């Protein structure tokens, strides 16, 4: 039997090859045939989940509730020390010092990343801004969000903090951070679907022991991770409840 593994489409492009290396490693370690399918966007990935095509997923926290409560997925692990944080940034020449001073009608450059978009919009709320009174400019990447700011095509940009920090110094010098989130408990997770659930403990143990050998360590490095941390059902439920409060 062959299984399908997929990764949240907001993965860092630098780590694309890392996910293929990880998939090969996982197949060998667990003796499963696993095909890695990278979807172009969240819409395509969610369609595949709805058709029960996905058995293993490195999931965006925004999709965790749907995966657990509607599709019977369970959490396995998360990357240690990594949480999803968002940044609100403006062009360095913008005079605004505080989100509270932004005006309705502003243009907000965003990517499709659902959790970052949500956190960013929450950080705009103190300025009485919401989806009804801002103009959203959809961008494919965070570099394009930055370009919209540099060209004054957008007033503010919402970034994944990690992606903002990875922008070149030349770009960063032309931008200014208004707010950086410090939420700490929203994170991507590797999750397992109903067809693989009987192997959950085995796969979880295999992942937790990855740092125990040189090859496993190298695979983690290619993903930009140091090690995995266990995510139990209650931790996942807690994050889902938290996300639930934030989508209101």
């Amino acid at each position, binding site marked *: 039997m062959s299984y399908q593994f997929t990764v949240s489409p907001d993965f860092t492009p630098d780590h694309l090859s890392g996910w293929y290396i990880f998939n090969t490693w996982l197949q060998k370690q667990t003796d499963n045939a696993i095909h890695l399918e990278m979807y172009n966007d969240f819409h395509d990935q969610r369609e595949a989940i709805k058709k029960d095509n996905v058995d293993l997923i490195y999931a965006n926290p925004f999709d965790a509730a749907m995966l657990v409560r509607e599709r019977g997925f369970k959490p396995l692990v998360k990357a240690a020390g990594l949480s999803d944080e968002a940044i609100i940034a403006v062009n360095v020449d913008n005079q605004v010092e505080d989100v509270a001073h932004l005006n309705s009608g502003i243009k907000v450059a965003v990517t499709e990343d659902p959790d970052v978009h949500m956190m960013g919009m929450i950080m705009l709320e*103190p300025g009485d801004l919401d989806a009804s009174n801002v103009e959203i400019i959809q961008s494919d990447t965070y570099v394009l969000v930055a370009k919209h700011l540099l060209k004054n095509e957008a007033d503010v940009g919402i970034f994944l903090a990690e992606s903002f920090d990875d922008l070149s110094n030349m770009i960063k010098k032309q931008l200014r951070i208004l707010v950086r989130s410090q939420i700490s408990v929203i994170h991507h997770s590797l999750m397992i679907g109903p067809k693989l659930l009987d192997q959950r403990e085995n796969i979880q143990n295999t992942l937790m022991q990855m740092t125990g050998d040189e090859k496993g360590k190298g695979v983690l490095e290619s993903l930009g991770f140091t090690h995995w941390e266990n995510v139990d059902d209650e931790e996942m439920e807690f994050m889902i409840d938290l996300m639930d409060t934030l989508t209101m």
Partner: protein
Amino acid sequence: MLHDMKAEDINGEFTEVTLDLYGGLSRKILYTEVETPYPDGKLIVSTTDKEGVITHVNRSFVEMSGYEEEELLGAPHSILRHPDMPPAAFKDLWDTVNKGEKWQGFVKNLRKDGGYYWVKATVIPNVRDDEVVGYTSVRRKPSRTKVEECIKLYPTLF
């Protein structure tokens, strides 16, 4: 356990009142007019059991409330109850979450030092195996416009 507030913990001139709280409790409150601004980018998170007793708080909760974590765990959530908050708001909160629904509102919270901070709060029931086992409350920075509206509205609800 919920203790009366102590004068030595209070920062500045204070007013004293006794508040009747949910669950038949009452507490001596000492409060000041000192506002602590809500920090940008942070969420204050806590969970309680079904009776409203605190079972988890995050770092931001500890920082903003002025209490130590040990003082908060096991205390009723009404430890944050400010006398300027109308009882009707909390009745609405409990009526809503008891129906299994989410509640959202703007709340003036009381600090250990007698000061206060405004939040936009969302409370949801934690459902595990089809049963409500507690509640999660997440507070975020409110818009000043909404806070100004509440400052005018709340005194009319007593």
